[in-house]
């Protein structure tokens, strides 16, 4: 866990959001610091991803929710999370057990905060490297430093680079400023991208001028200054939701949902990013703090953009 700066922390009051398909919901917090020289700026990272795709639940024949449970193949009994450990298979069927504490303490010298030690031209970073986006929500107290950093980066067209450890994984991030807002894009490390040499693509064939011109004419006809909103439309989800709405109106295959306490606790942590950001940056009230809240592990993983699973295993999660 990163060191937490403010000793006095107000209990966060994220606005409750009903679990509905229309609501844009965002999960996952990480509170920590970005540093720029000796300037330290407390921020909260919120995933820019939201559960856009309609997630289908797995149900029993009688319509009851299903849960994922773990079993020991030797005894066949269901296991509780305290019965489960994480193991690394170093040769077939031979494991080294690794605990959360060991993973947390393995690399104490690596930065637990986003220390911007290099500023690179934003245009230098290839789109292939981008992995996952987060918004950096400023702490009201550090709003001035946040705005100063954002303004300076934007002015100079630079992205701030850092590596830092968050939840048992090291990330390479580019901090990007736009419209006064900072966001973090995690990037793939160099060895996570294959080189063209490895693929052995043969692009040596000569292109003759008439063939190029023929493509150019077709490109010209399809040219546009920017993306059209329809380009990014998820037609599959739209059709799925339409079908669901039709069935619901007709009362076909509609069953009562029993919301289990477990489900409720997950839904209660849903935060509306827009509301949250508004609350964080509205000037005037200088007393409020950036929420730093302890999250259950299951909720934390949401920040990494894992698609919503119908069931959250409570056992330690294998790092994939």
């Amino acid at each position, binding site marked *: 866990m990163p*060191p937490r700066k403010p000793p006095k922390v107000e209990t966060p009051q994220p606005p409750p959001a009903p679990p509905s398909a229309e609501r844009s919901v965002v999960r996952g917090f990480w509170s920590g610091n970005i540093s*720029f020289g000796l*300037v*330290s700026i407390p921020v909260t990272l919120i995933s*820019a*991803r939201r559960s*856009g795709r309609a997630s289908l*639940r*797995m*149900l*029993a024949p009688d319509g*009851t929710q299903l*849960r994922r449970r*773990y*079993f020991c193949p*030797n005894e066949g009994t269901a296991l509780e999370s305290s019965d489960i*450990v*994480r193991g690394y298979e170093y040769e077939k069927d031979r*494991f*080294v*057990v*690794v605990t959360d504490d060991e*993973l*947390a303490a393995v690399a104490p010298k690596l930065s637990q905060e986003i220390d911007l030690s290099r500023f*690179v*031209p934003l245009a230098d970073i290839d*789109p*292939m490297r981008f992995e996952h*986006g987060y918004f950096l929500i400023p702490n009201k107290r550090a709003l001035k430093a946040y*705005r*100063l950093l954002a303004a300076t980066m934007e*002015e*100079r067209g630079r992205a701030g680079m850092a590596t830092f*450890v968050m939840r048992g994984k090291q990330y390479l991030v580019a901090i990007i400023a*736009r*419209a*006064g807002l900072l966001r973090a894009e995690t990037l793939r*490390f*160099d*060895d*996570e991208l*294959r080189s063209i040499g490895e*693929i052995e693509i043969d*692009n040596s*064939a000569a*292109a003759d001028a008439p063939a190029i011109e023929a493509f150019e004419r*077709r*490109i010209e*006809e*399809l*040219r546009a200054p920017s993306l059209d909103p329809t380009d*990014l439309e998820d037609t599959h989800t739209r059709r799925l939701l339409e079908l669901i709405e039709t*069935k*619901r109106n007709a009362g076909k295959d*509609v069953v009562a949902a*029993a919301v289990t306490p477990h489900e409720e606790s997950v839904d209660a942590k849903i935060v509306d*990013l827009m509301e949250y950001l508004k609350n964080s940056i509205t000037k005037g009230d200088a007393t409020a703090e950036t929420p730093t809240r302890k999250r259950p592990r299951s909720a934390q993983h949401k920040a990494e953009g894992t698609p919503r699973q119908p069931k959250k295993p409570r056992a330690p999660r*294998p*790092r*994939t």
Partner: protein
Amino acid sequence: MAVRAMWKGVLRVADASVPIKLYSAVQDHDIHFRLLHRADLTPVTQAMVHAGTNEIVTHDKVQRGYQASPGEIVLLQPDELESLTPEESRDIALTRFVPVGAIDAQWYDRPYYLGPDQDAGGPYSALTAALTRNKVEGVAHWVMRKKAYVGALRVHAGVLVLVSLRHAEEVVAIETLETPEGPTLDKKELVMAQQLMSMLEEDFDPTAYRDEYRDQVMAMIDTKRRGQKPKLGLVKAKPRAGTLKAALEASLRTTQRKPREKISASA
């Protein structure tokens, strides 16, 4: 060993076509763990159980449903789900061309390299040249493994690259957020911040960053495997300066300009 193609398709720009092979451009280096039963270190198996009775429900008995409201679930039948599956096709349809850079990084998902299939070397090179000369990238739609994708077709070092894009509903667009506001920033502080940043500026060198944590986890696992106790430490926090101005001043005093050898080496 050469990487094998994961899919074959045909790029279509109006009536022109380029048969291609598609390769994943990413490779996974994450350390994978397995869940074990603590008592006997046996890998666990998993199953779905009925939330009420805890009885196992086998895969063929599992139904899919959508929670339409807190109290209502709409069940979806297998044939209904099947009817929504996009139709299989080999076509990668280019529907639009936009200036390079017009697609914001927030939409990028996964990159794939494209190579020419069989005798398509000529058309492949012609399309690559046409994209490069016009400084555009294409908006592509295709269906792969029963899923519909939208992507950006770009040129990277003379090779075609298809980067899949996220759907609009999956990302909170930056444009929808408000800019943090406050009093006008102090001119002196702005100048100092500019100075400090200029001292830390360099070109982007992707090889300058390594996942050291992964290496250290592997080293720790190796130590444990040999029956030794891993060395673990405490996480140290950085010292902090007082006001923003004091911190900027102290940073300017203590920050060294970046050594430039990395840059000259790659240039």
